[in-house]
């Protein structure tokens, strides 16, 4: 019973949060919904023995990324109403259909996998705890190359952000 509760409680918060992200009109509410989702995800991670990932999730996502989001929301203003009218008639209808079908299909795909798992890749009995030691051990041996390479991604992101958002004219004005 506790197992169910510990799954369904964060799961329902997660879905509610996600729906808020999708449906809320005020960007701040959306961001809060996202935070809800991320935190409940972190809880689920813990139940899945991924404690370190859960921590990182809290820190990086719910912390840093969301701050960034909120900062931009504040910067470009929250008072602007979004244009909600559709340019194609019946789009909402279509989209809802797509959504429902896609969801059920993906769900079916996920559930359908059980058969083959049990045959070829049965669930293991032992528990692999995602502790920092274990993660570090793997990350710095077999995954060392991607780990180093991901730094390029960050450099690229930085360069891109500078190139796009950094305005030399403003800098010159200040100077």
């Amino acid at each position, binding site marked *: 019973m506790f197992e169910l509760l510990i799954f369904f409680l964060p799961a329902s918060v997660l879905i509610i949060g996600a729906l808020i992200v999708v449906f809320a009109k005020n960007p701040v509410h959306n961001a809060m919904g996202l935070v809800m989702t991320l935190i409940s995800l972190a809880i689920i991670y813990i139940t899945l023995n991924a404690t370190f990932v859960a921590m990182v999730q809290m820190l990086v996502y719910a912390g840093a990324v969301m701050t960034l989001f909120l900062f931009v929301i504040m910067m470009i203003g929250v008072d602007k109403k979004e244009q909600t009218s559709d*340019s*194609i008639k019946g*789009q909402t209808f*279509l*989209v809802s259909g*797509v*959504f429902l*079908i*896609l969801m059920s*299909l*993906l769900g*079916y*795909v996920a559930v*359908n996998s059980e058969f083959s798992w049990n045959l070829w890749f049965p669930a293991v009995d032992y528990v692999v705890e995602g502790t920092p030691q274990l993660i570090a051990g793997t990350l710095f041996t077999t995954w060392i190359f991607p780990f180093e390479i991901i730094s390029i991604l960050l450099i690229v992101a930085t360069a891109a952000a500078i190139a796009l958002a950094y305005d030399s004219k403003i800098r010159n004005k200040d100077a």
Partner: protein
Amino acid sequence: MDFLFILPIFLPLLTAIFLFLNRKIFNELVTNFFTLNSALLSFAISFFAFVTFALDKFKPISITLYQWTRTPDITIGFTLDGLSGVMLLLVTGLSFVIQLFSTSYMEKDEKHSNYFVYFNFFVFSMLLLVMSSNFLVMFFGWELVGLSSYLLISFWSQKPAAAKAGNKAFVINRIGDFGFLIGLMIILNTFNTFDFHTVMQSSTNVSENTITTISLFLLLGAFGKSAQFPLFSWLPDAMEGPTPASALIHAATMVTAGVFMLVRISPMLQHSATASIVIISFGLLTALIAAFSAMNQYDIKKVLAYSTISQLGFMFIAIGAGAYVAAIFHLVTHAFFKALLFLGAGAVIHSMHHEQDMRKMGGLRKRMPITAGMMGIGTLAISGIPPLAGFWSKDEILASVFAKAGMANELVFSIMYYLFWALTLGAALLTAFYMGRHWLLIFEKDNGIDHSEVQEAPKAMTRPLILLGIFSIFIGFINTPFFHGLEKVLHETLENVEVTHLPEGIALVILAVLSIGAGFTGLIIAFLIFGFQLHKRINLGKFKLESPINLVKDLSSNVLYLNKFGNVFFVSGMKNFSRKVAVVVDGLIIDGSVNFISSAFGKTSKITSATQTGLVRNYVVYFGLFLILLISLFIFTPLVAQ
């Protein structure tokens, strides 16, 4: 000396080329000199060759010039036998006489030399046709005479009517040629050769159906060239050309090509009863229609044109009756007196300053005695008055038809041929009538117009007339019931042909009397009406003949409305049809469907590219839709999910 007879064929061609190349340099005199001498020379050589040939007992001589194509083995070859020999003499002789006439007639025409170029070219083509030893060379000549007649008819092409007439002549001839061509196809595929000799020899081995088919298609060709019903309407129009040319082409030579050709294939023709009946019926029909139409024409040349058609009909009747010698005989005599009549008409026209309407003539006899006399001889000859040339030949035809009726083994055919004979006799009567009318209208009837300025034609014109007049009188004696000269000449040619012979004894005499009677009757009626003015002297009022006569007059002058019918149905019909095809079928249906495909593609493109809205969320929807499609594809297709 065998090759000698080739020379007259190519001499006119060489003359034509020579004159063409020097047309800018030579003046009229030089041109005349060359063309006349060449014509005389070729006639002399022909005569010499013919005499040699005659001395050799009319044994055919063949010469192969070169190979035209290797497969099938077709050669350019010529042959001299009785038939072609007669034609050779006829063509070269008449060509000389008529050229002599032309030198004066075409005097001071700005395209004087062109005329002689075309003329010589025509003579060449005609000789090619008659001297050919196989069907291909004959077809060459056949088409080339069409070409040269086109050139001569539309000689004064700045006159729209002349251009139109030339065109019409060529096109209608082409319809005939189309038949000829199909005939050639069947011949080649049946006999595998074009050589006359071989074809005729092996024609006995071929089924009658094939022979009939070949004959009928060749007959179509003959109809076109010889202006037989229903392809005759070009010949009256062709009178737009220079009159001497008409004399040669549309009276003496080219139009008789059909007759010539049918005689040439007579060994084949005799095996097909159907073809004979078709020939005789169409010949008779033509003879009657043309004679009827000639009765009410006022153009001096058109009367002669219809007369020619009618006389050609007689020749066809002869062929249909199996009297091939009679056909050739009539061809020869007709050539002379019709040339005479045409040249005479030419002389009149020349003197009248190119006036051709007979209603504006009349009483010219005193002004132009020689012409009038010579034309009188021609008229008598064509009417079949003995002992002039026409009598002998026409009488032979009539007698042959009669004889054919006697020979028929079934009563129905017998009656039919007797009917043919009677109708032919009627046509002969009509001939005499309209020819009498023709002469009387020109030379006798007084229309109250002053012709004091009209003078006798120059000597260069009258001399040929006199020459032809003499021939018209005496040429008939080459083949009389008493002296079968022409028959002997043609003997080798018609070796295996069953020729209808004249009835013997008293029957022949009675027939002759009847035919003479027809001729005289026709002339007398003509005289009564146009000379004696009978209808003015007696009161016909109570008989109320006005309207039937007017109807007949109307029908006659309009050629039974056949020309109008042809114009409406074929000429305008063709134009409208092709315009409709071009606009509706080609433009709307075929091209339209092509354009429709492209415009449909363009429209589809326009519609579909509207889906590229530029809105990200729409793009995502496409993404999603395709993802759904994909995943359901994998879930629900047996192909993928086993």
